[in-house]
Every structure is written in C-alpha cells, then in structure tokens.
C-alpha cells in the first residue's frame, strides 16, 4: 500500500499497461491443440529386473565357455570360464590370495585415510589466511595438473618396493582432490555467517570450529567415494611398477607368464575388493550425512 504511493512518480507508470496488452493476443491466437497425455513409463518389479540381469550374465559366461570350447575364439588368449574357476580355487587354496588382497587393501586404505585427512585439513587451513591461501594456490594447481602416476617410478625409488611407496602414491592422488574440494567449501562460506559469529563476539577459533568445519563437512564427505577409487588406482599402479605382493603385482606376473586365467582371477578379486570398499565408503558417507543433517 505504502510502496504504491511512492512509486507512482517514476517510470513504472508506462510499463504497467504494456504487459497485459502483450499477453492477451498470443493467448487467443493459438490454434486448438490435440489432447496429449503425459507419457507414463511402467516400472517392472525388482525381481524381473534382477532375473534379466542374472540371465544376461549367465548367458554371457555360457557363450564364452562354448566359444572357447568350439574354437570360435582362441582359448589361450581369452581363457575360458571353467579354467578361470579352477584357477580361482587354486589361487585361494594354494596361492597367496589373502596375502595379495591384504597388501592391496592396506595400502589403499592407508593412502585413502592419509590423503583425505591431510587434504581436508589443508583445505580448511586456507580459511585462516587469505594471503596464505593466495600464496599456496598456484602450487596446489600445479600439483593437481601434474600427472602424478608418471612420477610413480620416482616414488618407488624414494620409498622402496614395500608398502610405503604404494601408500605414498595413493596419498598423492587423494590429497589434492580432498584439498581442492574442501577449499571450494571454504570459498562457498557466506561472509554474513562469519559476521553473525563475530557480532556475537566470537574468536576466530570459535568461528572455525562452530561454523567453518561443520559448513565444509559436506564437501569433505562428498569426495570420499572418489578418493577410495583413486587410492586403489594409486596402490595398483605402485604394485605394477615394483612390488613383492598385491593384486596389481599378481595381474602383472600372470600376464608376463601368459597365465591368462590368473589375470582374470586377479582382476575379478580386485573388482570385488573395489566394490566392497566402495560400498563401505558409501555407507560411511550416508552415516556421516545423517550425522550432520545437511
């Protein structure tokens, strides 16, 4: 009511009648449209979906077996399901399956934890000083664009053939991602939020603990799933280059000795490990998200 009285003086006067006048003719000039219904897609029940999925998998494996048996494909290069199954059993009963799994698992998890933790802390630390952030920023971007895997041989030289070098590569891969993502969170912080805290007489440390950290937590969490994949990649590449143990080394060794069935077995085990870790991290992410209710 009050605003109308004041705005009567200015430009809005000539705008007001123009709008309805423009809207009217288009509304009446349109031809009558045929009645069109919202397209509806019917969802199949879950058991149908799962059955089809299993059927596809089984027929693929069967086809592979038959093709190798009848010589449609070269069984030496492609191996075949029955041989792979036999090798799998042997790998677990006679081979060092558990040693390899344990080695890859440990280097992945250690690299993941180290990289994510240090990276997140580093990202958060940029909140404390704009100058410090400005100085470090270009180095960070350099480090990000660096093909870190290309430096893996160097890392192996420095850290040796053991677990440490794999952890180092996995850490290097995850750290940058965590740092940059967390820093994105810091940059997204609303300056008015900080104003509110300071108006209540807060210290910088209080602002950091009660505002910055909880605010950035969703960013920290959002990289967990990416990071577990990266950490695994780092660990495997480390094992490819030089290692005594690990699934990566098992794959490389099997390939070099033309034990194609063993290559498939190791890849299968590796995928299973990856899925398990991914599932665990997704679960962790859900728990954490629920914890902070964003």
């Amino acid at each position, binding site marked *: 009511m009050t605003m109308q009285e004041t705005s009567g*003086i200015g430009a809005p006067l000539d705008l007001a009648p123009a709008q309805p006048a423009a809207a009217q003719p288009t509304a009446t000039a349109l031809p009558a449209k045929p009645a069109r219904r919202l397209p509806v897609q019917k969802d199949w029940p879950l058991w149908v979906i799962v059955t089809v999925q299993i059927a596809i998998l089984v027929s693929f494996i069967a086809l592979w077996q038959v093709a190798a048996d009848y010589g449609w494909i070269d069984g030496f290069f492609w191996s075949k399901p029955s041989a792979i199954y036999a090798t799998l059993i042997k790998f677990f009963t006679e081979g060092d399956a558990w040693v390899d799994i344990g080695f890859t698992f440990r280097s992945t998890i250690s690299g993941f934890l180290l990289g994510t933790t240090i990276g997140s802390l580093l990202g958060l630390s940029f909140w404390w000083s704009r100058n410090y952030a400005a100085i470090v920023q270009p180095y960070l971007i350099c480090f990000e664009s660096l093909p870190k895997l290309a430096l893996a041989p160097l890392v192996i030289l420095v850290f040796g053939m053991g677990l440490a070098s794999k952890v180092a590569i996995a850490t290097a891969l995850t750290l940058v991602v965590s740092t940059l993502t967390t820093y994105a969170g810091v940059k997204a912080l609303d300056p008015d939020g900080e104003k*509110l805290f300071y*108006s209540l007489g807060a210290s910088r440390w209080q602002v950091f603990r009660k505002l910055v950290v909880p605010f950035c937590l969703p960013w920290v969490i959002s990289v967990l799933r990416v990071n577990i994949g990266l950490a695994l990649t780092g660990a495997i590449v480390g094992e490819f280059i030089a290692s005594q143990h690990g699934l990566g080394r098992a794959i490389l060794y099997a390939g070099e000795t033309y034990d194609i069935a063993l290559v498939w077995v190791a890849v299968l085990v590796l995928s299973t490990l990856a899925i398990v870790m991914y599932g665990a991290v997704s679960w962790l992410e859900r728990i954490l998200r629920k914890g902070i209710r964003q």
Partner: protein
Amino acid sequence: MAPVAKLRLDQVSMTFKTPAGTFRALAPVTLSITQGRFVSLIGPSGCGKSTIFNIAAGLLQPSGGRVFIDGAEATGTIGRVGYMLQKDLLLPWRKVLDNVVLGMEIQGLPLRRARERALPLLRRYGLAGFEYLYPNALSGGMRQRAALLRTLLFDTDVILLDEPFGALDAQTKLQMQEWLLALWADFNKTVVFVTHDVEEAIYLSDEVHVMASRPGRVIETIAVPIPRPRQRHVTLLPEFITIKERCLELLALDHNAAADEAA
C-alpha cells in the same frame, strides 16, 4: 541535557574503495539513541542502513567518526550489541534450540546451562514444539522468531534488527510485530529497527530516522508521540497519518533528487 545515550554514533562516515573509485556510502551521520527506546531507520535501498549497523556492531571500521555505548567508546569492538542481519542465518546443522543458544555458547556459557535458560523462553515466545527441529523444517515466520530470540538471548542491552520482517507475508508480518513488541516490553532492550515499510516503522517506534542516499545520511528525525500499548487501529489516527505523510514525502523527495542527479 538528557542522560548519556545508550548508543551514539558521532559523525560516523564510511567510504568504500571500489574498482570504479571511492564510493561515499555514509556522509557523517550522528545518531543518539536513548536507553529502552524503540527506534527505526527508514530510507531507500542502498542508503547505508546496513552499513550503519555493521559499524555499530564493530564489524566495519568507519572511515571517520566514533561509536559510543553507554558513553564509552566502542568503535570497532565486537560483541557489544546484538545484531540480527538481513538474513536469518540459522545454522542448518543445528536444531532450533541449539541455534538460539549460539550467542551464550560463544560467550562461554556451558551448553547445558545455555539450553536450560533458552528452553522456557522458546516455549513462551511461540516456538514451543519446534525446539528440536532443524531450521529447514520451519516456516519463514518461525525462522525469524528463532533468529530474533538468538539475538535477544545474547545478553546485550542494544539490539539491531536489519529488516527482520522484510521477507514475510503481510499477515505474518503483523503477528510478528505484535510478538516483537511483547518481547521488547518484557526484555527492556534498546531496539534499532530497519525497515522499508513506513507504516511498520511508525507503528513500532518511538522515533523514526529518515535517511537519504548518495551519500547516506539522516535527513530528519520524527518523534512518534502515540502512547503505548498501541492498538492496531492507531494507524488510522490523524497524527499517525500526518507522520506517515511526512515520511513518504521525505522519501519521495530524495527519490526526485537522485533522479535529477542522474539526469
């Protein structure tokens, strides 16, 4: 003269450096606000109302002039006045109760004690049943209540409210005005209130300061001598209408001046 002002801005001015040069947001502004009063600032958008608040709250160092609280200089000191910013800024990861106790918590009161103090007030002032909800489950009016209680529970004599009801619908706004007046009467605070709504400013206040922009300055201070408690229909009284007309005239005047300047 009158007793020492609760909050006093003495020749406070503000110049911002922008890429386009310097921008005079506030010409020297002098404001003196007496203990226990309800005072409003009205003015066109961009005339420096929020800037005045930021300076009074110590969040912005003025280019010139000084701020006094209870007669003691308080320029650039934080935590001396309660300040509700233009947004409610409730922390989405904290329940309503824990949002409301933020000020006390920052002042070092143990969380449990702070909650004990806040809980009865939350219930008394219309947030019963919402204590343990997260802010995103609240309506706009409820969010504003929570943000206002957070400001009030932060134990300061002066509170600055920057357009607290700006985004509310007319109906809710009226309810919130009554609610705020009740709170003000109970808590005995000195309130400085910014709004774009002239009627709201007059209805709530003892005193209305009308501002103009480019540079931001106070052009007139109008007393509202209508006794309290005020009924809603005071808005129809001749003296109310006279004040309102005067305010609108001043705001329109500034509008013309700015337009001339631009031409």
